């Protein structure tokens, strides 16, 4: 069971904002989905007990650390609405 307060906390973590109505429906839906996800914590024919530990991905072919040309600045900035040689956002701190 997941509470409305928990959903509010998750929304904050996810950088999402919901109306009260949306919060109610998300709480219902999340409860349903998490109950389903909880299958892995129930004993399905002994399969879920004592799990083996997860393998850490092996990266054995790291490339050489060499200087290479990057994409040009103007191309990288081409999709931003506000740019001036940089990404422009509103000032976020006051003096």
């Amino acid at each position, binding site marked *: 069971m997941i509470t409305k307060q928990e959903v509010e906390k998750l929304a904050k973590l*996810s950088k999402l904002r919901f109306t009260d109505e949306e919060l109610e429906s998300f709480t219902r839906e*999340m409860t*349903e*989905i998490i109950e389903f*996800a909880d299958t892995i914590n129930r004993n*399905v*024919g002994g399969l879920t007990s004592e799990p*083996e530990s997860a393998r850490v991905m092996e990266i054995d072919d790291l490339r050489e650390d060499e200087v290479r040309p990057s994409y040009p600045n103007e191309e990288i900035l081409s*999709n931003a609405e506000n740019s001036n040689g940089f990404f422009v956002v*509103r000032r976020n701190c006051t003096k």
Partner: protein
Amino acid sequence: MKERISRLSALLRAGEISSVELTKKYIAEIERSNPVLNAYVHATFETALAQAEGADKRLKEGHAPLLCGIPMTLKDNISTKGLETTCCSKILENYRPFYDATVWKKLQAEGAVLLGKTNMDEFAMGSTCETSCYGAALNPRDTSRVPGGSSGGGAAAVCAGLAAYAVGSDTGGSIRQPAAFCGIVGLKPTYGAVSRYGLIAYGSSLDQIGPLTASVKDAAIVFDAISGYDARDNTSENVPMPAVTPALGRDVKGLRIGVAEEYFEGIGAEIRAPIERALAFFEANGAKIVRFSLPELKLALPVYYIIACAEASSNLGRYDGIRFGYQAKKYTTVDDMIITVRSEAFGKEVKRRIMLGSYVLSSGYYDAYYKKARSLRERIVGAFSAAFEKCDVMLAPTAPNTAFPLHYSGSNMIETYLSDVCTVPVNIAGVPSVSIPCGTDKAGMPVGMQFIGRKFGEADILNAAYFFEQNGDSGVPEPEGGGQL
């Protein structure tokens, strides 16, 4: 007739039709049918005609590759330099990447002609193609039904003859399930066989690019063109990958076909019967059917949703409305701007999966969900390896049902999630699978079955699929656009 690529390529080489003429025929077909089907969301006709002109030059010079001059489509989550790539999400509206995905680079080198980008569930999250911000694509075989998802637009385009072939992506069935719903062929390659560079990420440890085609041979040809090591994707595997197309056409004498009983649990007779018929067909042709239990399959669906959503919540963290895509009109602080952009521009299904991902990764739940799912994944990988000691390929239904009616998933969220039960195990295990049509239900809608192989066993599964396609009888009518072009 099903084999489009080799046939069209022969016509182009013989000079019976030019690539420009062929491209114009496809454009006319798209202009006629797309207003109803909504398979394409961004048309790139100008680019296509320019590419076709280039292809015609190469064809005249001789030695052009097989795919040269053949019109095709890419799913809207595959980056195309200077051309809209939006994942069918409002948050990426008007986004034009400044680089090409490796698969698109490779296909351009072959002389491919891009007709446009095809419809998909928003960020590939869905099984019906209905969560697209451009509205649903429809199933060409019955327009009151969905084409499946998430690569539904590509499947509909191939089925309706609006492209010779399509390239899509499969995180939990997004190539195979729409292929099954539309009665075409869909290949999810081995994880690491096709570069993901430029594929906009959903679940990075599961995502894989592959073809949707009218025939098995077409799928093999496209796979040969797009597979191979890429230094820009560090999960791309640097192993020899011999071409699979020349391997087609072997018989199936002595082939061990594995049948895991769990794949058939809860599967209705309309899906089960054609697959049993296919098994009998293979047995009559000298294959050996090996039946066994694979209980780990029961864990695959919850493990999939936990891992996929966890990765999605992290991957989709990059959408902040600063560098590209949808911008907030009114906001107070930078934080408020980011929250406003994400809340206004992500669709409901995407928000739901981000929230679920945040939940399974958050402190207090991480061990019980994400960590546990990761370790159970290892168990599933091990179970598949053990199964392939007993058999060479496995045969299973692609989906527990045929194409849903439109709007079904909106009111049946969990049921729609559960319908991924047959496709997700392959993504969890990282092995390849190809779905082909094997029969029809009472309403005449196609039923799909999938051959599953060992890692890098594409040649084995495609050969078994090809044998059935050539010698068996699915009863599924050929997709459109085979004859007239």
